């Protein structure tokens, strides 16, 4: 049975998708957040049918996980499927199939490229001499243009394609965009390194010793990856603690 989806129901699902991680948990992950986001829309679809409403609420409480910004793809598509009166089994299978790709595509695009890109750009500008609050503003604006744009695009694509959204995502080729973006971010990382080496508040002012040690830490990170983070941070924290103790005793 086809049911009408009101504009306000769609809008509220989109707005609520900003809170989809509000009850993040190890049991159903985004399951409760997904159901929460769907509630007003489900009410508008099934308001007069308590049993259908109940069943719909239960199926959207199920375990779900995705990148938060791309969860809207699944949310939009689920809305379309519910409005079309799709078989509940189809809805369930759609959500099972879509969570993996929405997670890995979003992690690659946002967490591994867009966020560090915006952050590194702002930091490079800061060490080139841009006042810090301007750097923070640049970061927020650049990052959120992409962030909110991606959420909006994903939700709309899901809403218009339903369970066929895989083909649309394939055509959008997010993986290739991610790859290109990573090349751009590598340029910005270079920019940051240059600014740290030569900028006023950077290593040029700190002296040769710190520059050499920083270069070693950089190489360690480059060669062994994430395993280098903790030893580097612990060493710095320990050095500061010792300096404070020596100052206090001496």
């Amino acid at each position, binding site marked *: 049975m086809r049911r009408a989806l009101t504009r306000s129901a769609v809008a509220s699902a989109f707005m609520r998708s900003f809170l989809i991680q509000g009850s993040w948990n190890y049991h159903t992950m985004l399951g409760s957040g997904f159901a929460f986001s769907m509630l007003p829309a489900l009410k508008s679809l099934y308001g007069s049918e308590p049993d259908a409403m109940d069943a719909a609420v239960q199926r959207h409480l199920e375990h779900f996980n995705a990148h938060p910004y791309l969860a809207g793809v699944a949310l939009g598509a689920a809305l379309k499927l519910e409005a079309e009166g799709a078989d509940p089994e189809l809805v369930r299978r759609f959500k099972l*199939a879509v969570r993996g790709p929405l997670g890995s595509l979003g992690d690659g695009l946002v967490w591994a490229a867009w966020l560090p890109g915006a952050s590194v750009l702002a930091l490079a500008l800061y060490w080139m001499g841009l006042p810090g609050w301007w750097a923070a503003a640049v970061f927020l604006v650049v990052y959120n243009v992409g962030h909110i744009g991606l959420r909006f695009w994903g939700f709309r694509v899901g809403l218009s394609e339903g369970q066929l959204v895989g083909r649309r995502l394939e055509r959008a080729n997010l993986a290739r965009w991610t790859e290109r973006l990573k090349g751009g971010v590598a340029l910005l990382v270079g920019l940051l390194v240059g600014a740290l080496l030569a900028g006023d508040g950077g290593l040029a002012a700190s002296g040769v010793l710190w520059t050499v040690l920083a270069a070693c830490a950089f190489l360690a990170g480059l060669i062994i990856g994430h395993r280098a983070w903790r030893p580097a941070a612990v060493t710095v924290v320990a050095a500061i603690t010792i300096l404070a103790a020596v100052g206090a005793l001496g």
Partner: protein
Amino acid sequence: MSIVLYRVDERLIHGQVVIGWGHQLRPDRYIVVDDELSASEWEQDLYRLGSGDVDVLFSTADEARDRLPEWQASKLRSILLTRETSTMRRLAEGRLMDGEHVNLGGLRHGPGRAEVLTYLHLNDDDVRDLEAMAAAGVDVTARDLPDAHKVSLETLSKSRWKSSS
């Protein structure tokens, strides 16, 4: 031998498989054996999205039984995935997978399934499937990621018996 990993994982192609196992085993393709999925194009589109540049082949269990020797002998390195223990059991019948290893990587959903490991929930049918595989010469163990601890079928059956009693 060029099926480099046989894995039962209801999530099929996802981060743990593509990043965790894929980066280590460098497969040329994923083979997903599932009767329902091999008839459903839109679901295939979705699962393909997660595989990066690696090809994905969908096959029914019957077709897979016919082609298993060919895949095993092929130069292409494959990771073979099923989302049910029963599908993997069908492949192993008649000692088609004699001497191979099956990796249990993730099962949560399903009637009567009880937690055996954080990522692995099994019901009585699952356990019977796994024992049948073992009887057909397959070495069955559980491990979510390549660096994680490997758990033997014997240990799994014991903790399954404990958790259900």
